[in-house]
């Protein structure tokens, strides 16, 4: 498999807590330039040819490290929309030169229809090959490695032949991409499907992980939904600490996508992540042999 690993495209996000930047805070961020280590935006919101969105992103990029996080490539599908979407992403990456580019390990489309949601894959050989083929295409087109994120899920497929974590690692190993490990998604799926969240994290090689995500979920009857509309829940903070112990310090993002609170609230969440990250880095500096690794796929 082709590899676009460092040094060609090193992961350049700071080893610090960043925040998902959404439209309600755009003007405030430009006006106040808050002390935030890095930002992540949804790539698709900046696909336009010109105008205010792309102008905004250029200005953010001048002052902060930036991650482009896609929600629409549908890496695990065979739809007819992929190539046009990839071209738009490639144009944006070329214009913005972000520190990091990431997508979800999921499917969102079938035929010429898009569902604009992150749907779970059956963990089969066929799905593995499809995801790897598309990630190859993306990395070839962008000439850089990307990170792929584990999504949360509410259903499991009867035909799955392997665990989600084995599938995720196999995709990363075979395509040469890195992993964006969403701690909240692991927690949500672990509760929904009854597996051990710690075992999931134990199975992920630290050197594949380029970024961590944290967000809030909501309980819906007897299962959890990944809404990104709440503060990070206490068991997810605990799992984050476990992940830092296992994987080493990693760039970490606070995501909040519905009922978006004030920027100050998001900064408070980021500060909580930052405190745990620094505690882990302090351990690293005290015992260098345990330090987290840079991404080297």
């Amino acid at each position, binding site marked *: 498999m082709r590899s676009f690993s460092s040094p060609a495209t090193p992961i350049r996000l700071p080893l610090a807590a960043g925040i998902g930047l959404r439209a309600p805070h755009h003007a405030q961020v430009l006006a106040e330039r808050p002390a935030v280590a890095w930002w992540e935006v949804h790539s698709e919101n900046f696909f336009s040819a010109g105008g205010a969105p792309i102008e905004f992103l250029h200005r953010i990029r001048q002052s902060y490290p930036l991650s482009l996080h896609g929600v629409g490539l549908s890496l695990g599908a065979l739809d007819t929309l992929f190539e046009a979407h990839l071209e*738009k992403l490639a144009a944006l990456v070329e214009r913005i030169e972000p520190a990091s580019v990431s997508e979800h390990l999921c499917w969102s489309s079938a035929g010429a*229809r898009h569902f604009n*949601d992150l749907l779970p894959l059956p963990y089969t050989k066929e799905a593995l090959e*499809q995801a790897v083929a598309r990630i190859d295409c993306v990395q070839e087109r962008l000439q850089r490695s990307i990170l792929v994120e584990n999504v949360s899920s*509410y259903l499991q497929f009867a035909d799955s032949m392997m665990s989600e974590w084995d599938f995720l690692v196999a995709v990363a190993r075979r395509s040469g991409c890195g992993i964006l490990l969403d701690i909240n998604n692991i927690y949500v799926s672990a509760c929904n499907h009854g597996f051990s969240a710690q075992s999931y994290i134990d199975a992920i090689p630290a050197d594949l992980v380029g970024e961590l995500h944290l967000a809030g979920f909501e309980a819906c009857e007897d299962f959890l939904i990944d809404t990104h509309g709440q503060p990070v829940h206490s068991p997810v903070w605990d799992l984050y600490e476990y992940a830092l112990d296992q994987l080493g310090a990693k760039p970490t993002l606070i995501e909040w996508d519905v009922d978006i609170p004030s920027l100050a609230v998001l900064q408070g969440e980021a500060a909580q992540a930052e405190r745990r990250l620094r505690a882990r880095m302090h351990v690293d500096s005290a015992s260098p042999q345990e330090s987290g690794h840079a991404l080297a796929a």
Partner: protein
Amino acid sequence: MPSLPEVQAVFGGALRNDAAPGHTPALWALFTEPEALAERRLAAYRRNVIGNWRSALASSYPVLAQLLGAQRFRQLADQYIAGYPSRSGDLNDYGGELAAWLEASSLSSERPYLPDMARLEWALLVAYGAVDAAVFDLAALAEIPSALQPNLRLHIWAGAAFIESPWPLVDIWQAHQLTEDERDSALAAIDALSHSAPCRALVVRSEGRVSALALTASEAAFLRALQSGQTLAEAITAALSEDPAFNPGATLQAFIVQRTLTGFSMNETDHRL
């Protein structure tokens, strides 16, 4: 074992808001969860998918949403969603056919200006993200001998949209840019069903903000002529036939300042000269 495209076709079919309820063996066979549990969890996906499209429509058509009220707009959105699947992984692209769909909807017999308002709101959205307008090179224009200027073909910004409607579109749109109190009195002054003042709406963008302006009949004739590839002289003639008092210099300047006109070229004959 169904292939990946088969799995996704069956799963995707169950996400439609008009998905036939009932017990589809091929669907429930996909999942490890028992049918009743799988049904509830699948409903969470369906709610999310439909909710994303509803939100996209509400965000792209804020004036339509206000005109109809939340409940009726949601009904409209759900009918549209059932008939028009998303064709893009960029949710911002969803909803471009709403005007065409509204033309055929029963809502339009009651409020016949709705399709044109939808057309205007979509045009504003397209303009918002359209390629940045080139700055019209006035110095280069000044160097064109005046004898050749009538033959110039003026370039219109790619994001500019020009919508002619029998309804007072721009007045209604502008009223919805006001605060709620101001809006009510502004709307009260507009007879939305009045045919007395046909509207020629031009979509412009300034400093990243898009807006709709009303053109006079002569300005509209001028722009329509330029859009169809006619020369400056032909466009001026068209405008003068609407209004003998048409002022070409002032209109050109206004269109250049608002970035509706971005440049010019000579036709082939002129290039040889």
